């Protein structure tokens, strides 16, 4: 009985503290110290939210760098992330990879004479774990650079320089792997003007 009374009192005290006070204080601190990050690293231009630096978005136009494939529905849905969950021997995975590779060859081939499937990096044809991976490998960015430069009538060197500027290196130069942030890169391209 004594245990019961104590337990009920403890449930109330613990819930008040860990259920309300702790998240509220953490949120209050975040809004002061890290308001941009805590709010979702949103990219705002002319008062309009254009996306988040931490989420892929759909790019299909030839003038833009394209993201990795997405398994969410619709693609790049930052409101309902999901794995694709195709097993390593799944015939559906083989079909998906083949059709993704075919599309890339068709899109990039005209700008890259002699391009074959062996030149396509694996991250370009596989879905990411979140479905909204904001990065592509530097290899996939390099593959797309000739197309973007040609469509925008820019020197290839300019595009390559922008790729470099929008590549996130390893954290502290050590943790993780380098990746090119596609949304940031495309915004930088648009800022240059041109078509």
């Amino acid at each position: 009985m004594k245990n019961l009374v104590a337990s009920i009192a403890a449930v109330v005290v613990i819930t008040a503290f860990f259920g309300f006070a702790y998240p509220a204080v953490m949120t209050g601190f975040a809004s002061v110290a890290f308001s941009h990050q805590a709010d979702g690293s949103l990219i705002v231009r002319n008062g309009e939210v254009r996306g988040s630096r931490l989420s892929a978005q759909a790019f299909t136009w030839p003038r833009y760098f394209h993201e990795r494939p997405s398994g969410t529905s619709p693609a790049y849905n930052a409101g309902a992330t999901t794995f694709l969950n195709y097993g390593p021997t799944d015939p559906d995975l083989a079909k998906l990879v083949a059709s993704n590779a075919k599309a890339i060859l068709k899109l990039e081939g005209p700008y890259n004479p002699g391009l074959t499937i062996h030149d396509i990096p694996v991250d370009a044809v596989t879905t990411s774990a979140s479905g909204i991976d904001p990065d592509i490998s530097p290899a996939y960015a390099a593959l797309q650079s000739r197309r973007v430069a040609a469509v925008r009538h820019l020197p290839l060197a300019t595009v390559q320089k922008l790729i470099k500027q929008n590549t996130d290196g390893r954290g502290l130069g050590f943790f993780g792997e380098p990746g090119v942030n596609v949304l940031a890169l495309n915004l930088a391209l648009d800022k240059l003007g041109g078509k």
Partner: protein
Amino acid sequence: MNGQGIAQILVYVVLLIALGYPLGLYMARVYSDDDFATRGRFRWLGAVERGFYRAVRVDGFKEQTWKAYGKVTLVFSSVFFLFLYGILRLQGHLFLNPDHLPAVPAHISLNTTASFITNTNWQYYGGEYTMSYLSQMAGLAVQNFVSAAVGMAVLAAVVRGVARRSRNEIGNFWRDLYRTLVYILLPLAVILGVILMSQGVVQTFHSHTTATTLQGAHQTIARGPAASQIAIKQLGTNGGGYYNSNSAVPFENPNGISNFFEVLAILLIPAGQVFMFGKMVGARRHAWMVFAAMFAVFAIGVAVNLPAEQHGSQVLRSSGVNITQGHGQNGGNFADKEVRFGIANSTIWTVATSDASNGSVNSGFDAQTAPGGAVPLVNLFLGEVIFGGVGSGLYGMFFYIVIAVFIAGLMVGRTPEWLGKKIEAREIKLAALGALFVPTMVLTMTAVAIVTKSGVASIYNHGVHGFTETLYAYDSQSNNNGSAFAGYGATSFSASLGAVAMLFGRFVPMLAALALGGSLAKKKIVPASAGTFRTDGATFVLLLVAIIALTAGLMILPALTLGPIVEGLMH
């Protein structure tokens, strides 16, 4: 091969020990020092602690026997169970429910409540469209702290039992609970939470927002108070994600730095507890050997998973695309993986989360290669004692240590001893109960679930794969891991059976551990002699690993041959 990746793994291990060791010594002080935070600058903390005991009307300094300790643990957990179940059933009538979500169905509520009370975080529901803000914040998130703290408190009591001699008491539940929550989990969660926010993990009460993409489409971006919850879900080996894709989602885990701290947090407390144990019982070398046994199994997991994933899957290798590492890409099996983590950081997470009974992921397990994906599966079947859940992992390991010294004693024909205490019939019985209960229950439940009509209704894929799904579901729930194998549905039968699995899988070994601690506390120390089996050498490490592999192997291998092994042979 993957030089940079291997370097990252080595730094991980070094930092895990460098931070886990002092944390272990600190935790030993928190649990042993009656005067902790009563003097000096932190005096006010001690005053708050005494205020808590007054508020709940207990004497936090009164020592309890293992029975009294176990009883209050059960009562406390039962009250929290009813409270959480009540919130889920009544959320439709309660506040903080902006989307007007109705009550969670009874069988889902039952399963979810059991899942969070037992530190499992098995999820038979979709967070965003089932749970109100109140249910998430004041219900489920609180249990990330509390279920972890209960496991850690019980471990502290059991370790005291090992350390003490000729005593009946093993500590006070309320004090252990309070001190775990306030002196260990809260400061660690605040530090980790702030690090994560600084890197970009969201922490806001603002709702979803809609962006206009560069191509003019609309994109919904889900946000919420995530950082505070993710910090404790990693530290407390809970694992339930804020987002569906868990820690693969950039809003939960934005870059290499956040990833490193999160995966460090997964093993930090379980590793630190091994050193805490060494300090509290005054047997540091023995603790290092227990750590070595755990680390050996961990290292094997990394050594199998990393090359398999870097080598890539059959489908990707025969597709013709470039999977070779170098020239601006990480290569390997990149299906359901993220660019910023690459292969090595996905591997270390896979092994850590399945060893620690955490269950969170930063890449998709289903898409892993056959040898790579076998690692988390095998880790699950080892019974979650390789580091394991906070508290529960190490007291689970104690069962195997007792069995190991018993078998060593049989081999040389002497009464077995552990840290100077004679291991007798009662201890062996408790250790056997603790070690064998869960695998026995897994097999029984799997059998029931595949021979009854209502059990079969949960299976999506028929044939061999359906058996694997069933086995995995009850193994994951019984071992309080919570990771899921896609495709085992929630019927009222499976949800209820799963709830029973989680509750018994949690509390039977917990009570067996408390009884073992109580029994050891009563014993005297006998001086070591020439015939004593040394528990501080390499022989002990080998024996311990062998006992774990043998026990798990003998129990689960027959079932594995019916499922995953047949499946592997069919391909």
